[in-house]
């Protein structure tokens, strides 16, 4: 009996000891976890703090650049300051992204910073090409300066707030970008020859000619386009924006296809659909797909389209066709057609770039002859083909060029010479393999 009691006591002590060890273990483990979590939180706070300090520093440097730019008429000095402003603006933009992206707050700041960088690049290019800073451009620079000055004051105030937060021991996790509304209220609308010009990224909706069509009319066009029964067409996604379109949905072979048709003119604008990847068949090659895409465009009534580039992705080939008029190829006016390598059917269509351009391309007479333009191309390039082409400029404008295809060693290039100024405006390197033709 006594032995039994002793055994029980032993077991009880063992259990108590085990429990004690487990509790100690859990405590050590959890304290390790808490320490890790604290370390991570501190690291995150440090990252925000560093980003903010750098952001303020770059903003001050932009302001300093403007300060100096205001008092210089020397081209070399102006270039130097513009390079500094642009570099500092690019670095400020990177740091701004690390701080909370409250809509309408950081976006105001980033927009100004990005446009300052872009506008500086535009002015530098202009000066390099022999131009000077015009009075109107000086006025814009002054407005930008005032804006940066105000933003800088707000950023410095934000830095003080951040330091107070750190001093109070609170986390910077919820740190927000300073409200920039007062700084940007007089911010100019920037229109210049650059991609962030207001008219470029904020494009007006495309106005198409033709009668307004009803949803039912569009349904008929979709049935013709897809060669399907109208009964299989359902309501899709009506959309506005750059285009105003009716939307349709068609379920074919278990897959959904979405088609949009412009309300003005009733043009089929896009076909977007998903089909699970299928094994390509030997019978259907990228060449077959290109032919199918070209035939499809003809069936749809597009007569003046020339194949340009294509690319194989998974089990589909995306073929690009540019509009051609009077033997001048117009790259901005383009249509994309996707064809399946598995079944040979058209799986995608996009004519947004086609309809965004005028119906008829305005081709001006080139001021240079083909021979004169050819002389501007380096003699190291072995020219294999040449033609007139319209390429897009920085501001959705069109530039009439001579296009020269040529080879240097094993590489193929396309060189564009402005048919008006004779300047070499673009060089592309062609990469061609079994996955398609790409330009870099």
């Amino acid at each position, binding site marked *: 009996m006594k032995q039994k009691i002793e055994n029980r006591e032993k077991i009880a002590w063992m259990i108590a000891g085990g429990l004690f060890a487990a509790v100690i273990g859990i405590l050590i483990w959890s304290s390790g976890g808490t320490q890790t979590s604290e370390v991570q939180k501190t690291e995150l706070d440090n990252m925000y703090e560093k980003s903010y300090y750098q952001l303020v520093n770059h903003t001050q440097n932009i302001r300093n650049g403007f300060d100096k730019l205001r008092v210089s008429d020397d081209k070399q000095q102006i270039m130097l300051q513009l390079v500094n402003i642009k570099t500092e603006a690019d670095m400020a933009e990177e740091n701004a992204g690390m701080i909370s992206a409250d809509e309408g707050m950081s976006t105001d700041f980033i927009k100004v910073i*990005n446009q300052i960088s872009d506008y500086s690049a535009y002015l530098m290019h202009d000066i390099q090409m022999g131009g000077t800073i015009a009075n109107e451009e000086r006025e814009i620079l002054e407005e930008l300066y005032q804006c940066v000055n105000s933003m800088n004051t707000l950023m410095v105030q934000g830095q003080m707030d951040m330091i107070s937060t750190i001093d109070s021991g609170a986390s910077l996790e919820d740190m927000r970008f300073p409200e920039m509304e007062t700084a940007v209220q007089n911010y100019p609308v920037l229109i210049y020859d650059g*991609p962030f010009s207001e008219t470029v990224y904020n494009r007006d909706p495309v106005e198409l000619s033709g009668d307004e069509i009803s949803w039912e009319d569009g349904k008929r066009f979709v049935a013709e386009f897809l060669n399907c029964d109208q009964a299989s067409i359902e309501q899709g996604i*009506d959309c506005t924006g750059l285009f105003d379109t009716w939307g349709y949905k068609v379920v074919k072979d278990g897959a959904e296809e979405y088609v949009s048709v412009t309300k003005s003119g009733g043009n089929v604008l896009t076909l977007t659909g998903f089909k699970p990847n*299928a094994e390509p068949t030997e019978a259907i090659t990228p060449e077959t797909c290109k032919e199918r895409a070209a035939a499809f465009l003809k069936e749809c009534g597009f007569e003046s389209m020339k194949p340009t580039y294509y690319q194989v992705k998974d*089990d589909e080939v995306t073929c690009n066709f540019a509009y051609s008029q009077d033997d001048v190829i117009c790259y901005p006016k383009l249509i994309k057609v996707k064809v399946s390598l598995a079944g040979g059917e058209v799986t995608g269509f996009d004519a947004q770039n086609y309809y965004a351009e005028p119906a008829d391309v305005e081709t001006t007479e080139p001021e240079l002859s083909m021979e004169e333009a050819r002389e501007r191309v380096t003699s190291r390039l072995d020219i294999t083909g040449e033609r007139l082409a319209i390429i897009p400029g920085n501001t959705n404008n069109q530039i009439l060029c001579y296009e020269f295809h040529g080879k240097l060693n094993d590489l193929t290039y396309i060189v564009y010479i402005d048919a008006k100024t004779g300047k070499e405006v673009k060089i592309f390197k062609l990469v061609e393999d079994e996955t398609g033709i790409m330009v870099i």
Partner: protein
Amino acid sequence: MIKKIEKLTIVVLFLGLTLAISANEAFGEVLYWGSRGESVKEVQRKLKQWDYYDGSIDGIYGTGTQKAVKWFQRNNGLTPDGVVGDSTAAKLGITLSGSSSTGGGSNQATSDETYLLARTVYAESRGEPYVGQVAVAAVVLNRTRNPSFPDTIAGVVYQKDAFTAVNDGQINLTPNDVAMKAAKDAMNGWDPSYGAIYYYNPVTAKDPWIFSRPVHCQIGKHVFAK
């Protein structure tokens, strides 16, 4: 910014086509920067064996691999273009045939940017109609071309608090084929949102500011706006 302008020039510019962004993609028997898979591992192994490469054998054709390939090509009388085609493969003593397939599946070669975009699409909009997933990818790309946002895909995706799926870690889920195709379509120029730079769920959106943006369309549960 230079990077952004170049990207714009290329993408808007030419061809709406498929240019430099997708030029990083490789399929079949040619390997470029951005390729992935066993063939890349084999190339890396060979380059490491001959001391051209000191990175990890991870099967991802990144900058390190590209530099090593160029170095190898220079030393072997090949054009130093950083691309492993037949001649470079032969000099390396490997055969690339059958290394990757154009038939889809998870081992397809893909550029890092497209993959990040696909992860964003999957995290933010899986279960949405395909066209809605393309639109989400297009919004990310539209932001890179808009001065109010960072200028790279990674910059936009990881902009603090810009996407809830990044904050809660869903961004790290592996994208499915639908999200991959949606990302590729958007990279190829498809934009069902017609230039939108925002999207939100009207049921769960908390910031009233977002409701002031001009709406382009609603696809599934997302409203796309400018």
